[in-house]
């Protein structure tokens, strides 16, 4: 039987996109389907830490070794998504000495470069550390932009011929007896790029082999074919600060605990996190105590956080898994390792494997292992090349940086744009047309926004994750509408309006959790700008009942030769006090 594709990957997070790239590079025909945007699941909701492995150096040394290996690979193949911030494991006076020693030994056992700094030396690196910190271990942690890294994998998969379908939700697995041979998806707006307001269709996509890489949602997919995949989704909060209080990843050096990491990320710093098992990865409480804990507990390490401005909080759901029978109570104790569940071996149902567990830093290694498994199933003998070949945007970075001009942009903007685009800068930024800044907070220009629209269609949240537009201090208050303007005329007015409303609501979702101090003032300003001047809350275009324009003030009109259509006036009778009004018009030259 002829199939639509050789391998069908479910899920557009880092794992799914990594697998799609890997298999496409090995010459397989790949289709990837994702329910929302790329990174919409867990990938887009992580703290952005590129692990050195230090965090696992005591509890899980196998993971630690894998982390440092992948850390080094990502610096090579994804330089434009990674920032080499370095990291510190900071010990406070009340934190155990034994653990500090174990951490240091663990790092050395795992070949993680580690150096002990005194409290004073640590504060020289990070001046805002608390005055009483005891000492620290310096490790090569980094920051990574999960959005751009994931999108770069997807772009490269497409370059190798893969089909990437976003906004395509799997609504059924196609199963024939004990064989799974594809899925039914519901396209939000039809195949291809997303367009708001376009009616959806459904499509059956058949494949030689299906890879379920939906992470925390893997159980829901499994259930469609009566397979039990026991993921234990666990939520965690991330709180974003308006500036980088620290330029180094700051970890608390104690056995385990919530609120123990600060990751500098682009213009912000991200505080994390909590670890609470939830029953539904799409519906769980986002709670005030979690946000408060980030600020209160991490202020012990960096006291200025207490008074600093928080711009939003978001939650992610870890796709934790443990093999049946272990029964770990506390999700913090569940392994971060990943598991490949071959449903043929496990359940006697062929044609599909599920991937659960794992972590972002090692997505590539996971993808490699899973791709090896898929190749075995399909009898393909091709080896993995993803560790060697740079991702789009990271080719020849060093050479390019020397040769790149500023594309007519002011230097701070050009620098930011080039950091985001890497080696794609030339291709994206070189234009003969005016290239004004669309998002002031993040310095995102029209050319970048247009490049993102080109990739993803009318979904402004997809534009946001590709460019960082609307992700700065004002949280889109000043630029959401400007971003929407960029959709026109390629997309019509109604589509543009729908996309704007969706983006503005999405920004509010995270801002709600930062509503005090400066950010509450910002929220009021954003609300006022959109509701007051733009009337976004009562736009007659979005309401069913029409407006009778004829009953409103149509101006203080007097007979005027320039107004050839004065006769159309519907309200002339009301205009009794012409004297002052006509003098108004004269004085401003309006009456000719």
């Amino acid at each position, binding site marked *: 039987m002829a199939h639509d594709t050789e391998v069908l990957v479910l899920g557009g997070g880092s794992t799914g996109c990594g697998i799609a790239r890997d298999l496409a590079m090995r010459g397989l025909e790949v289709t990837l389907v994702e329910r929302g945007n790329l990174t919409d699941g867990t990938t887009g909701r992580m703290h952005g830490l590129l692990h050195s492995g230090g965090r696992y150096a005591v509890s899980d040394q196998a993971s630690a070794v894998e982390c440092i290996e992948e850390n080094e690979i990502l610096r090579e193949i994804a330089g434009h998504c990674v920032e080499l911030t370095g990291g510190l494991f900071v010990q406070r006076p009340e934190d155990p000495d034994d653990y500090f020693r174990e951490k240091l030994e663990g790092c050395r056992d795992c070949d993680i470069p580690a150096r002990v700094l005194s409290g004073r030396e640590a504060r020289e690196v990070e001046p805002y550390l608390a005055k009483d910190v005891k000492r620290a271990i310096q490790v090569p942690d980094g920051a990574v932009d999960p959005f751009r890294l994931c999108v770069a994998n997807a772009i490269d998969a497409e370059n190798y011929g893969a089909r990437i379908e976003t906004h395509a939700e799997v609504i059924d697995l196609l199963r024939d007896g004990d064989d799974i041979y594809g899925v039914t998806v519901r396209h939000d707006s039809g195949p291809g790029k997303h367009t708001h307001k376009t009616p959806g269709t459904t499509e059956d996509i058949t494949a030689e082999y299906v890879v379920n890489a939906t992470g925390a949602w893997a159980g829901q997919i499994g259930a469609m074919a009566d397979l039990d995949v026991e993921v234990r989704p666990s939520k965690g909060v991330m709180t974003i600060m308006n500036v980088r209080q620290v330029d180094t990843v700051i970890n608390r050096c104690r056995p385990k605990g919530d609120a123990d990491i600060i990751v500098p990320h682009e213009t912000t710093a991200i505080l994390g996190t909590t670890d609470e098992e939830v029953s539904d990865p799409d519906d769980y409480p986002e709670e005030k105590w979690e946000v408060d804990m980030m600020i209160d507990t991490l202020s012990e390490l960096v006291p200025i956080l207490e008074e600093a401005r928080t711009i939003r909080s978001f939650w992610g759901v870890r796709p934790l898994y443990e093999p049946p029978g272990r029964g770990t109570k506390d999700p913090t104790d569940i392994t971060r390792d990943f598991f490949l569940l071959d449903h043929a071996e496990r359940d006697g149902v062929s044609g599909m494997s599920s991937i659960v567990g794992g972590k972002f830093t090692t997505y590539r290694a996971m993808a490699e292992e899973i791709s090896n498994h898929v190749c075995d199933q399909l009898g393909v003998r091709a080896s993995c090349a993803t560790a060697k070949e740079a991702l789009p945007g990271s080719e020849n970075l060093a050479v390019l940086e020397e040769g790149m001009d500023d594309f007519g942009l002011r230097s701070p903007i050009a620098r930011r744009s080039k950091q985001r685009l890497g080696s794609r800068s030339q291709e994206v930024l070189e234009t003969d047309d005016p290239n004004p800044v669309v998002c002031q907070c993040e310095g995102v220009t029209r050319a970048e926004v247009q490049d993102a629209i080109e990739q993803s269609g009318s979904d402004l949240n997809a534009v946001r994750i590709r460019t960082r537009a609307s992700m700065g201090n004002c949280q889109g208050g000043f630029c959401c509408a400007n971003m929407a303007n960029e959709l026109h005329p390629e997309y019509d007015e109604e589509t543009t309006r729908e996309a704007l409303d969706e983006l503005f*609501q999405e920004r509010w979702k995270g801002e709600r959790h930062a509503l005090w101090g400066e950010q509450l003032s910002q929220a009021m300003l954003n609300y006022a700008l959109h509701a007051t*001047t733009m009337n976004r809350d009562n736009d007659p275009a979005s309401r069913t009942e029409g407006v009778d324009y004829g009953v409103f003030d149509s101006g203080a009109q007097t007979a005027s030769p320039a107004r050839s259509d004065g006769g159309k006036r519907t309200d002339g009778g009301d205009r009794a006090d012409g004297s002052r009004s006509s003098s108004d018009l004269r004085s401003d030259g309006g009456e000719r």
Partner: protein
Amino acid sequence: MAITDDVLVIGGGIAGATAALAAAGEGADVRLVTHKQSTLRNASGLIDVLGYTHEGEGPIVDPLERLEELPKGHPYERVGAEAVRDALSFFDAVAGDAYAGSHTDSNALVPTHGGTVKPTARYPVSTAAGLASDPKDTLLVGFETLTDFDAPLAASHLEAAGAPFSARGVTLQFPGIVRDDAKLTRYAHLLDHEESVSTGSGDRSAREALASIVKPHLEGESRVGFPALLGDEHAAEVRADLAESLGADVFEVPMGPPSLPGMRLEDLLYDALEDAGVRVTSGVPVVGYEIDEAGAIDHVLVDRHGQEIPHEASQYVLATGGLVGKGVRSERDRVFEPIFDCYVPHADDRYDWFVNDVFGEQPYARFGLVPDRELRPLGADEEPEFANLRAAGAVLGGYDYAAEKSGAGVSLATGYVAGGRAGAEASE
């Protein structure tokens, strides 16, 4: 000896300026102190009175007629409909030729940069020719380098909003603008000062050059709308020249920040303050106060270059703005008024300060002081916090100016009443 006046107004937005003018009108010696740059540069320059009821019904045709329906505690309910009408007349007299709309009680529908229309009671004269409630075919002109106004999109949006005329939009390159990130004031300056710009056909004045690139796009429309950048000091001349060259009326579409019409309104108010003899000190925060034996405010302390200078008055008006202007502030567990610590009602749990729909009924949008009918802020015990303190504008709570489109109107009405009463009492 302390600096002494009859009335001290704290805050320099619409409410503070109106209060100072009204107090001066009562014959009082008035001083106005402001700390931060006023939020008028964020404002469209439109004078909204009431566009929608507190229940979201609208657009309202006659705002004054609908004031009766507002709930108890709303600032308009506090001052009464008659005072709102008087305050508008007061503004009309102050604004003179610069504003239009006083010929009728009806709201106008004004197209703004987002493309749709909004109801407003008074509008800058630069906007007068562009009313959406005036059925004339319209050409909108946008510029490549201004990302917050897309004229073709705004034109289709107006049609989608049911505007009773045909609208078209065109996007052009502004002559003489060489940097893609030129500030809005640069565009206005070029037109204001008739700078010479180079065009394909040699050097021309900026107004001529602009008109000449727009003219070929006119297809019989009787009016042409531009984003609000048509000059600053010489705005009327700029519009007149463009209109003459184009043979059509010319108007400005109100924009987001930085808003020239908002800044022009600020200039207008400050000119009026000067004419009225109000002493204005800018850039100075009020950092403390002392009370007299009777519990009234004796004097406030104003921080002038690090020195705390006492300012004494018999009456005080607090017009420091709401959350945006920082007249109302918040921390994780409280909302407060920072100068006099006047009572600001709010839920204890900050997760009750908002609702999940961004445009839902937002409790935070209603944060502010609770006044009596004299506009004296009340404490939790419902007694005036101080016998000689009144409050005006967005520092007051109990209304959502963004949803109602009532911001400028409330500031005018409460500023007028608070300032008038303070002035009258002080001059007694």
